[in-house]
Each structure stands twice: as C-alpha cells, then as structure tokens.
C-alpha cells in the first residue's frame, strides 16, 4: 500500500498492527497521565482569565471592569449573568469567552457578578436587583464614561432582571438592550423547571434554613431536565481524556455546570408566584415595588437572542419578547444552539459572537 492509499491518521485506525499498537499505547499512557493530573487537581484549567478591576462591591455583588487598551466603540457593555449560576460562564477561558470577544471588538466591558447569596440575602427580592443594584451599576458606569450610556446585556435569569429594570427605569441611561435566553412565557418552560408551585411542591419545602434555595436543589432541577446528562458527560470524559485540549475544556465547563449558587428565597417565591403561576411578564401583568411594569416602556434598540436547541429556556418561552417591547428597532437572533452553546464553544466563538457584537457595534458610536 502506497502512502497515499493509507488511511489518514487521527480518528481512523491504522492498518499496520505495529502502528496501531504504538498509537493505542501512547493514547492509553496519555489518558492515564491526564486522568492522574485531573484526579490530583494538577494543571487544572483556569477560568475567568481576562484581567479586570473591581469598581465597587454592593453586598455580595461586585461590579467588575475588564481592562482594555484599545476601546474604539462606545457605550460600554454591562454583562448581567444569571442569579443561579456563576458569572464566569461569560468569561470561561481564553479563546472561549464573550468578555474577551467584546474587548477584542473594541468595547469597554463591565460585568456585575451577583456573588454567592447566603442568609443575609434570603430576603432579597426582584426589586433588590431591578430597582437598586442594576440601576446603581448602570449609573456608575454612565458617570465613569461621562454620560455615554450603557449597552445592557442580560443572560438567562439575568435577562429577566435587565428586562424588568429597563422597563421600570425608562429614563436610565440604557442605550441598547440585548437579551440572551430570557424566558418570558413560562407556559412553555419545561415542567421539570416548574416543579414548585400551587400544583406541585410547596416552595417553602425547597427553601432551606438559610432562607434560600440551596445550590444542590438548583443543580437538581437542571439534572431533572436531562437525567442521563451527567453520566453521558462522564462517559465522554473517559473516551477523550487523552486529549489535552478536551481535558481543559471539560474542566472549565464542569467547574461551571457543577457549581451553582443558592437562589435567594425572596426571589424564588416571586418567581413561582409571578412568573410560574401568573405568567406575569408575558401577560403584561407584572407589578414590582407597587408599580406596574410595562415592557412597552422599553424603547431602546433591542435584540432578543434565542437558542433553537435550548432545553432549559425553550425558544417558545422567549420568542414573544421582541414583540412585547416598545422598541422601534427590535430584532431577533435565532441560533442553532443550546442554552450554553449560544455563548460557549467553537460555534459560539466563530459564528454567534460576531453577529451579536456586530449588532451592538452598529448601534454604538466610534470613539476618537
């Protein structure tokens, strides 16, 4: 057999028995070495690597500013992650980070990290975030940038917060609003995520002695959606553990998926009552702090991003959003991706992020 006729190396099995044995032995040794490193926690993939500075702390929340030497576009972007997971998903790893992409595109990037709630945050309500913490962050950034305004970017439950904040504070300096995987129509949410409520489990039974929904329960609710997902992840790990790059990605990703944070009890009660029971956002019947919230009050340029393969926040639950807001410039971006795949992975880096940052750039101004 001529070299040209030989099958390519890599995933295909070499026909030469000696080459095959050598390859298998090398692979097994590499797998053993990687497995040992993984078990001992040596050379673990580091997350949240973009250099940043703390602007201020407010309770458990921290406003971070990412360093950028070449800011060419304004206004700055404020990223708002979910309340139930760690914020570093938006800055997972170098080469796999929304923060890094936005900085590379020329934006000044801020992120509000909600931190890990404890007993002191048990009484936090939606208003704590939408009427106090987010307004403070937006106004601080606006003042730091001489009244340039802010592009607000909300992800998952963070999207609910940015949405309700923008609707309840129409005069705040929000220039653009980007919503990623934001549920609004809770009738389309998976039943495993809606297990608490009048027809199911008493919400008080989910809240522990700290007054919050424990992180284990938050993780459990995601596990119920795809009960075999954890096993499949472990099987995939053993299949590809010999690959250094895979190991790095696996460690970074699992450090996020297995590390949820407690959900403040006050917000959880409101979520069950207002969103699950009354579907108040979709029906425009939401009242916060005694005032009705009308999404039609959002008039800034608006982008709703949804994942067609999202099993946590199905596309149907977020689809109505662009039509509910009052923006004349309301767009919808449908991605062939799941909840996390929209912002993490090679597909996100190559295809999704450029479209998102282009949309923001088109509605930003070039800085001198």
């Amino acid at each position, binding site marked *: 057999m001529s070299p040209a006729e030989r099958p390519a190396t890599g995933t295909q099995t070499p026909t030469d028995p000696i080459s095959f044995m050598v390859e298998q032995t090398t692979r097994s040794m590499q797998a053993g070495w990687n497995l040992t490193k993984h078990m001992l926690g040596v050379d673990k993939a580091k997350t949240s690597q973009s250099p940043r500075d703390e602007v201020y702390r407010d309770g458990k929340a921290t406003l971070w500013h990412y360093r950028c030497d070449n800011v060419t576009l304004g206004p700055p972007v404020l990223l708002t992650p979910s309340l139930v997971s760690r914020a570093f998903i938006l800055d997972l790893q170098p080469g796999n980070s929304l923060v890094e992409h936005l900085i590379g595109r020329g934006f000044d990037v801020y992120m509000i990290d909600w931190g890990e709630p404890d007993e002191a945050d048990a009484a936090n309500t939606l208003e704590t975030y939408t009427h106090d913490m987010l307004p403070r962050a937006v106004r601080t950034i606006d003042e730091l940038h001489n009244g340039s305004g802010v592009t607000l970017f909300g992800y998952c439950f963070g999207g609910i917060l940015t949405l309700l904040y923008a609707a309840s504070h129409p*005069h705040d300096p929000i220039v653009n609003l980007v919503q990623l995987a934001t549920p609004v129509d809770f009738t389309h949410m998976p039943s495993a995520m809606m297990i608490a409520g009048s027809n199911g489990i008493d919400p008080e039974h989910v809240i522990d002695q700290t007054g919050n929904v424990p992180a284990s329960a938050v993780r459990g609710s995601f596990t119920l959606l795809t009960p075999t997902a954890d096993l499949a992840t472990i099987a995939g790990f053993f299949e590809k553990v010999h690959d250094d790059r895979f190991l790095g990605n696996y460690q970074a990703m699992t450090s996020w998926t297995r590390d949820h944070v407690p959900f403040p009890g006050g917000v959880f009660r409101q979520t069950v009552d207002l969103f699950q029971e009354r579907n108040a956002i979709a029906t425009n019947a939401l009242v916060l702090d005694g005032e009705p919230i009308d999404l039609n009050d959002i008039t800034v340029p608006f982008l709703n991003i949804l994942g067609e393969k999202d099993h946590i926040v199905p596309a149907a639950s977020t689809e109505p959003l662009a039509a509910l807001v*009052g923006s004349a410039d309301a767009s919808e971006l449908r991605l062939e991706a799941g909840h996390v795949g929209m912002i993490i992975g090679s597909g996100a880096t190559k295809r999704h992020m450029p479209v998102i940052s282009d949309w923001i750039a088109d509605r930003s101004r070039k800085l001198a």
Partner: protein
Amino acid sequence: MKPLWKQVFDRVEQTTGPALADFTASNHFAEILKVGLKISNDMTKQTEALSRQWLHAWNLPAAGDVAYLKNQIGSLETEVRALRRTIEQAEITTTAPAPAIPLRTVSAKAKPTKPSSRKPQSKRTPKTTATTAKPAKKSTPTKKSKPTKAVKAS
C-alpha cells in the same frame, strides 16, 4: 471511531434518556418528590431541634442562631438600600434646577414667581435626566403585530 464500550453506552443512553426525562417531568414523579421533600424537611427540622437543644444546654450557638443573625443583617442591608434610594430620590428633588422662567421684564411691584412643586413621577428618574420630561407613550398598542427584524447568524 468510538470505542465499543462508548457505542454500547450511547445506545443505552439514547434509549433510556428520553424515557427517564419523561418520567422526571411527569406528575407522578412530582408527587414522589413532594413526599420525599416533606419527609426530608421534617427530619432535618427534628434533627436541628435536637442539636439546638444540646448546643444551647452548653451555651453554644446553633446553626439556626447564626442563620437568624445573618437574616437580621440581611434585613438591615435591605433597609440601608431603601434609605439610600430615598436619599437619592431626595437629592434628585433638591438638585433639580427650578423650572425655567420665561424672560420678561417685571416691574418692581410684581410678585416673585414661585417655583412650581414637582410632582412625583411614576417611573424612576435618574439624576442625569431629572429635568427631562418622560417621552410620551405610544398611543397605538401595535406591539403584538409589530414586525421584528430577524438577524441571521452567518
């Protein structure tokens, strides 16, 4: 090519995965979970009550005491935030310039114009836009039928 064990695993997972997901989404499972959580909560409460009694007998604080104190701190933080908001609102009211008086010649006997009192606004207004009037709301409720631009990922 995937190793044999992974092929077998995938086949089993593809068969059992959806069935398990259907089960966890069912009312039957919710009922089981409901009972399980109730029992778990009752047991936790009883255990905590016992350990609290024991710790208090030794004059030691129990986890519940610490949780109570932290809840109190949380309530205080909430009050501080509410106060901060009140102060911010008060600052807006006091720092906002008086409404512009049309330039006109006034006689010495004319009474000075009183600045009109500001009505509280229904939507929250930041410092920077304190004097900006709220834009008029859209009169026609066309939000349901409003066409939205579709952005396509390349």
